[in-house]
């Protein structure tokens, strides 16, 4: 591992220091890009400007360290783990570190995107450099004070000592340090010397969470704020024709009923191509009320007539359309090695299977909501959104404001799972506030969230393999999806590079149902399909399913194919670890195991599910997981992500279903839409592969392999393959349970 890695940013321009008016040293830095030249550091905490610096460290005269983290949590733990990395290299006692939410620059600013399991991966080097640079500046200041060579000094846990045994606390030298040159080429710690990274550090917001403090968007309040609910078309493909508000206006607490939609249509006509979800052009009816309950009741009392705007789609028709795509010729080649047709023609046996998955809503526990206050001077937006910059730009364009006039605050988020990448609810809040000229909080009910939302697309995979002389010689995967297709490097994930004749193709069905990213987009279902298929191939070849993967991985180990991102060696190590930890093949009678492994979001994961039969029905008892995410920054947080990801993957594969009839969602709330509950959960036991590789993300990679592990265990127990999610519907069929 290189410890003096040259970075792609100039250190001089990514970090600046100043003495605070209130005392102490303030270090501002930019994690992803260099700061603009000539930017000034604030001299008081109240004017931290996250435009130029996206994080700050304050060291007080007493030596206490405050790390201002600008990107709030969606539950992935970075608010704890990112400051840990700074504190490690800064070399302070974690007990003296406070993590604060970044204070807002009330003039104008937007924040970074949060999402994609990439925060730790991208932040690792910059966070370490920042901590180490700050430490070196403090040491240099002590050297000046003692008039000695800085190289003779040692610093540890916030105390600098010289050869005579004299010591100075960081707080004693902050003023002097702040005016020194920012040093180049600071030395980073050896991984063996880490004292904070690798420790079990409890979530920094734990006290607020367990005592019910205001943290989330739904908790946010402002003076004069009113509440709004939005009536949207009950089916995709519909638009508002007429409505009657008389009953709604009789509801106590309802202030007014308005229509929105104009601003969105104008925005769409303007041809601006900012990143956003596909926006509906329909008018929407908005109930404005004094409190949330009146807004909810008022919406129920509205009566509206809807008319056809575009085709009313049904899941049954999607099923036919996706199958036609798989069988048609209009597919886009995403990767092609060798010639799969030749491989099939010369095969001993050809196997072909098709896998089906439904749409899925995200169902964040905190329903979508946002606060907006649009005034002539500026626009104040507050709430949970993962892409604040994009949201601010669209709002500015929609309402005809300069983006500099937008002040957007992110709150902690009650889950994201991809839903909060899209800013539709932010635009609605802004349009409403502009119309009523009041600060407003727009609130979705669960039904609003589930029926008008953005969905994981319904997807089918058809996979065909050629087997010859006991080997997999050809592999052809076709994807048919509603809305959009697999993207980026996914076609280069396993088994790309392992099979000489390999082809991935995708086809798309254009729909008026809005689809988008859903935790581990595409791989969430692709991994299930492929890993189930490989289990079936192992049976055909009469080899152990794990051995089949290990044999295939040998072919990619020394690849010179630059497109291949995953590592054959790391995947092999991960698989071997789970095989050992789960006692693969050595369980007691009545326990059936299923194996699955997948690389996604730069992390290698392998899982083994153990199931038993209870009255003939499969019960998942345990899932053993091995993960290679490089250095584990915060083991408790890391395990939490993997445990949750695995259970999330199992829950949706087993239980969750969603469909449309004539454009209308057939599930509205948790009475008929099933999410996994505690009595249905197995124990998840997580093991990390130990190495010194730079850390990679954990928010998503635990999820994709889970469905396959369970499906393969079900097959081991019942001799039945799962081809369609949710499995519970397949298991209900009498033929499966005898």
């Amino acid at each position, binding site marked *: 591992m290189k410890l003096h890695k040259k970075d792609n940013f100039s250190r001089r321009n990514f970090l600046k220091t100043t003495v605070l008016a209130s005392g102490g040293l303030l270090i501002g830095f930019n994690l992803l890009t260099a700061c603009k030249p000539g930017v000034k550091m604030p001299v008081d905490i109240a004017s931290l400007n996250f435009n130029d610096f996206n994080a700050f460290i304050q060291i007080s005269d007493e030596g206490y360290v405050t790390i201002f983290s600008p990107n709030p949590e969606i539950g992935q733990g970075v608010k704890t783990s990112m400051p840990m990395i700074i504190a490690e290299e800064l070399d302070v006692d974690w007990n003296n570190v406070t993590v604060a939410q970044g204070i807002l620059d009330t003039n104008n600013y937007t924040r970074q995107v949060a999402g994609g399991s990439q925060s730790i991966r991208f932040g690792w080097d910059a966070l370490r450099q920042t901590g180490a640079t700050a430490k070196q500046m403090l040491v240099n200041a002590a050297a000046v004070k003692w008039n000695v060579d800085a190289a003779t000094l040692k610093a540890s846990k916030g105390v600098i000592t010289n050869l005579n045994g004299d010591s100075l606390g960081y707080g004693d030298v902050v003023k002097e340090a702040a005016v020194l040159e920012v040093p180049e080429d600071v030395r980073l710690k050896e991984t063996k010397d880490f004292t904070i990274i690798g420790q079990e550090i409890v979530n920094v917001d734990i006290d607020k969470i367990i005592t*019910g403090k205001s943290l989330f968007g739904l908790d946010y309040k402002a003076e004069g704020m009113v509440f709004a609910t939005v009536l949207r078309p009950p089916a995709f493909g519909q638009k508002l024709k007429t409505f009657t508000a008389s009953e709604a206006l009789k509801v106590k607490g309802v202030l007014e009923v308005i229509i929105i939609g104009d601003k969105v249509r104008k925005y769409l006509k303007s041809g601006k191509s900012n990143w956003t979800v596909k926006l509906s052009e329909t008018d929407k009816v908005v109930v404005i009320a004094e409190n949330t309950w009146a807004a909810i009741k008022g919406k129920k009392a509205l009566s509206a007539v809807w008319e056809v705007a575009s085709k009313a789609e049904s899941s049954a028709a999607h099923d036919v359309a996706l199958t036609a795509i798989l069988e048609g010729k209009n597919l886009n080649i995403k990767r092609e090695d060798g010639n799969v047709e030749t491989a099939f023609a010369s095969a001993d046996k050809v196997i072909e299977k098709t896998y089906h998955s439904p749409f899925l809503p995200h169902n964040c*526990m905190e329903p979508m909501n946002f606060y907006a206050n649009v005034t002539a001077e500026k626009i104040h937006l507050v709430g949970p959104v993962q892409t604040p910059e994009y949201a601010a730009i669209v709002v500015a364009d929609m309402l005809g404001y300069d983006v500099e006039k937008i002040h957007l605050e992110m709150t902690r988020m009650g889950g994201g799972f991809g839903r909060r990448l899209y800013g539709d609810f932010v635009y609605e809040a802004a349009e409403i506030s502009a119309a009523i000229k009041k600060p407003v909080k727009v609130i979705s009910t669960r039904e609003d969230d589930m029926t008008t939302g953005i969905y994981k697309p319904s997807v089918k995979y058809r996979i065909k393999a050629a087997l010859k002389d006991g080997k997999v010689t050809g592999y052809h995967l076709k994807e048919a999806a509603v809305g959009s297709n697999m993207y980026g490097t996914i076609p280069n994930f396993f088994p790309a590079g392992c099979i000489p004749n390999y082809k991935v193709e995708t086809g798309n069905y254009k729909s008026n149902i809005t689809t988008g990213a859903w935790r581990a987009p595409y791989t969430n279902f692709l991994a299930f399909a492929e890993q189930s298929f490989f289990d079936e191939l192992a049976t055909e070849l009469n080899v152990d399913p794990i051995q089949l993967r290990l044999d295939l991985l040998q072919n990619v180990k020394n690849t010179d194919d630059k497109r291949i991102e995953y590592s054959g060696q790391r995947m092999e190590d991960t698989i071997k670890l789970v095989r050992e930890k789960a006692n693969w093949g050595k369980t007691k009678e009545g326990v059936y195991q299923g194996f699955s492994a997948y690389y996604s979001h730069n992390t290698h994961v392998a899982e083994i599910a153990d199931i038993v039969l209870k009255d003939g029905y499969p019960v998942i008892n345990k899932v053993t997981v091995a993960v290679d995410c490089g250095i584990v920054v915060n083991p408790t947080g890391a395990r939490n992500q993997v445990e949750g990801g695995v259970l999330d993957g199992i829950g949706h594969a087993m239980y969750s279903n969603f469909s449309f009839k004539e454009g209308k969602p057939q599930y509205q709330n948790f009475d008929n839409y099933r*999410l996994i509950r505690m009595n249905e959960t197995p124990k998840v036991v997580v093991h990390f592969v130990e190495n010194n590789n730079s850390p990679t993300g954990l928010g998503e990679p635990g999820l994709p392999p889970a469905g396959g592990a369970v499906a393969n265990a079900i097959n081991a127990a019942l001799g039945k393959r799962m081809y369609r999610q949710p499995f519970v519907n397949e298991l209900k069929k009498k033929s499966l349970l005898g």
Partner: protein
Amino acid sequence: MPNYTLHVNGKQVVVSADEDTPLLWVLRDELDLVGTKFGCGIAQCGACTVHIDGVAARSCQMQVSILDGVKITTIEGLSKDGKHPVQEAWKEIDVPQCGYCQSGQIMTASAFLAENKRPSEKQIREAMHGNICRCASYNRIEKAVKVASEKMS
């Protein structure tokens, strides 16, 4: 709107609300007790769980007009200092991910443990199955309930 006298977290409070307003929204909008969360509005997810005379109840289904004379406890009133054994256990096990459902989970767990001090694993799983955690921190919730039961006995 009519006035109602409620007994919340050891204090008498008078609120003005429409008679069918669920306790959930009285707590959140009128009393500024935002620890009780809105999740589904139909008593299926448990995010809005409070104690009514010590029993776990879904505040989204309890109209303000029927709460005369009962003692209501919310997450804010579960303990004075955040050190109820269930809260302590939640911290010790580092349960939350996004954290949104956790006050409801804690309220269900604390009412359950008050009735059943040494529950079996099966009893814990049954008692907690009405509370959804979308991040699926279920393994830790289960463990924390067990740790809390040990602290309480």
